[in-house]
């Protein structure tokens, strides 16, 4: 069975009922979660959150955006690109996936080192928890310490405490120059690898640098390529970074769209089991936010991967 609430009131009613009847719920947003691994959640009823969609507020001058949790990564990208901004997450997975699932699973991406992770990017969250309460934490401004941090609690909680309905995030201006390169060096070339590591740690650090597996390189059409590099910044910065990169090995320019193809390969799959939330403190939190234990009940020991 699938339940599809149209608003937070209906979602609260579903939460109350599920608690009263101890009906386990499987949270689904955009449904991009790979079909083969959804068995990790034990539930015969799906809670479809896809109607919580759309950008609620976007003020380019504030570099902040608030959107329904089912809003897709592509929609956010399109809206922000029009103002030369972006959501800094650029997360692993298909861009048809939702913002809510990205935060619920704390999914990062290749730019996380330079631009931040979901816990750094989220500035506010609204959710319905397992008691049926509609709560929000944080707000729509970039700096906020009012109250205990429900935002950080919800990020990475994998839908086990409630359903995120709305998220506020900080955006970034897109760099003036944004260029991508394939980098070639012999596998096992220790000197090249340590030069790459030094570049990543240094002041000319790339936006992203990913060592490719043979399979991923082939899938992207770069057999033999060792790494994908993305350089961003102003003209002089990128020129210096490019020169440093060329010290590592042979390079070839490539189209920046390579990154969405690479992210869609989901090269860093996440997995969760009930053991993830089994320590005493986490169990107390679970009990306080989902007393009937009905939200995204993960099987012990079996992994659920990816995001929905």
């Amino acid at each position, binding site marked *: 069975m699938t339940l599809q609430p149209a608003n937070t009131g209906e979602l609260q009613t579903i939460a109350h009922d599920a608690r009263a009847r101890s009906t386990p719920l499987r949270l689904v947003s955009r449904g991009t979660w790979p079909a083969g691994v959804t068995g990790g959640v034990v539930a015969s009823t799906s809670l479809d959150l896809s109607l919580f969609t759309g950008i609620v507020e976007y003020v380019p001058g504030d570099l902040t955006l608030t959107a329904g949790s089912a809003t897709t990564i592509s929609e956010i990208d399109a809206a922000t690109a029009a103002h030369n901004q972006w959501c800094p997450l650029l997360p692993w997975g298909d861009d048809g996936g939702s913002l809510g699932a990205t935060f619920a699973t704390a999914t990062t991406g290749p730019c996380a080192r330079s631009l931040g992770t979901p816990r750094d990017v989220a500035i506010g969250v609204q959710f319905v928890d397992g008691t049926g309460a509609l709560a929000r*934490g944080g707000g*729509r401004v970039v700096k906020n*310490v*009012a*109250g205990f941090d429900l935002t950080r609690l919800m990020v990475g909680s994998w839908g086990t405490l409630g359903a995120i309905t709305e998220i506020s995030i900080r955006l970034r201006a897109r760099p003036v120059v944004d260029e991508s390169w394939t980098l070639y060096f012999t596998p096992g070339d220790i000197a090249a690898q340590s030069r790459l590591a030094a570049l990543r740690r240094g002041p*000319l650090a790339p936006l992203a640098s990913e060592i490719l597996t043979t399979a991923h390189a082939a899938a992207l059409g770069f057999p033999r390529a060792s790494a994908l590099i993305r350089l961003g910044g102003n003209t002089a910065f990128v020129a210096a970074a490019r020169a440093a990169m060329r010290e590592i090995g042979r390079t070839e320019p490539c189209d920046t769209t390579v990154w969405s193809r690479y992210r869609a390969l989901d090269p860093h799959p996440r997995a969760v089991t009930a053991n993830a*939330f089994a320590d005493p*403190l986490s169990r107390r939190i679970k009990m306080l936010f989902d007393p009937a234990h009905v939200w995204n009940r993960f099987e012990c020991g079996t992994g659920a991967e990816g995001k929905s």
Partner: protein
Amino acid sequence: MPELATTLSHIVGTRYCLTRATELLAYATDALPGNRRRPRLAVMPGTRDETVAVVRALYAAGMPFVPRGAGTGLSGGALADNVVLLGLQRLRQIITIDPESRTATVEPGVVNAALSKAALPFGLHYAPDPSSQTACTIGGNLAENAGGPHCLKYGVTLNHVLAATVVLPNGEIVSLTAPSEETPAYDLLGAFVGSEGCFGVAIDITVRLTPNPEHVHTMLADFSSIDDAARATSAIIAAGILPAALELMDAATIQAVESSIYAAGYPIDAAAVLLVEVDGAADGLDDDVEAVVRICRACGARMVRSASDAIERGRLWQGRKKAFGAMGRLAPHLAVQDAVVPRSQLAPILARMAEIGTRHNVRICNVFHAGDGNLHPNIPYDAGNADESARVHAAMSEIMELCISVGGTITGEHGVGSDKLAYMERMFPGDSLDAMCRLRDAFDPERRANPGKVVPSHRCKEWHAAPGAHT
């Protein structure tokens, strides 16, 4: 009570268990003037083990406590009203600095600036830099999720803490780490950061250290209207430049600083100055500097000058960081405010704040993190003057309502403490406040740590009906 004092004295030594009224006077206030609460006693453990023993003894005695670092907080968060004050300032050991992983593990009483000083030989520093950094402690920073001017680029305390060992108020010890993608878990560390001493006591804290930038360029832009300075702030950010810091000071603040020992050479006839710092790799920095200068001039800056060397840069920064202190010359007390508004609203908000100040006949000194929209409208006043105090209070309330009405928040970095409790109900609906109480209950179900702070207690529903909730 004498029994508890005896027990605690056995743990920490009589010298560090204070019970006399005269001794306790020093611990009756934090850095927010005008609020005093006398603790029942003050206990200051000297080691992590003593700290654990003290917390366990307090739990056994059923005695609530308030953790305190250096007492530099600005929200009345460290006031202990007839309960035990747990001073952590003696725990000042830097346990390890690992230049390879760029991390440090420290005790909670380590002073913020002392950590950066210790990391200097490795070319590293601890990035969050509250203005009180020469006195405030890492433990206090953790509790408050402290910010500072350079948080614009580098992020607040949350973004720099990697792990903490915490004694829960019942004496249980837990290790909190930032969850990684490979091992999903609730972000208990993220929840603990900024919990204002209500979730327990961190006895060791692992933080990220940041490489010192290759180059730093500090500029002072001089404006004849505060509105122009606010517009320049928005324009710099909108242009895609991310300065390390972008601070605004108004005429009242400039004059206070320039007539103090912290005189920094700010133009005393300016309506406002912007202190803009860009840093990073040498390559590309000049382009950012040129862009900042061009934008400031286009927005009406009379002059933009650059610090010629580290000494001049230090002087420009000292004026900013000691501005609150300089305001101390203007009146016996200072009402310190902390709110955040959407950056694009800065200019109209500043104009409306000025109108509020005029109407209540109070003098507002603005000195704030403009790049984040994090306002600090401070009002020097005499708390002994009832009429003036009432006017200051009325003006501050109006300013907070104004910030809330434009979608802002009641505190960006100082915390709620006791000072801002009343505003929490304006910010959050009842169910949200109750959810916050439940989060606290996971850490401290009996509400022993810093009782009565952050969330008004009448907003917390009883949840004990949930069977097995304590297990």
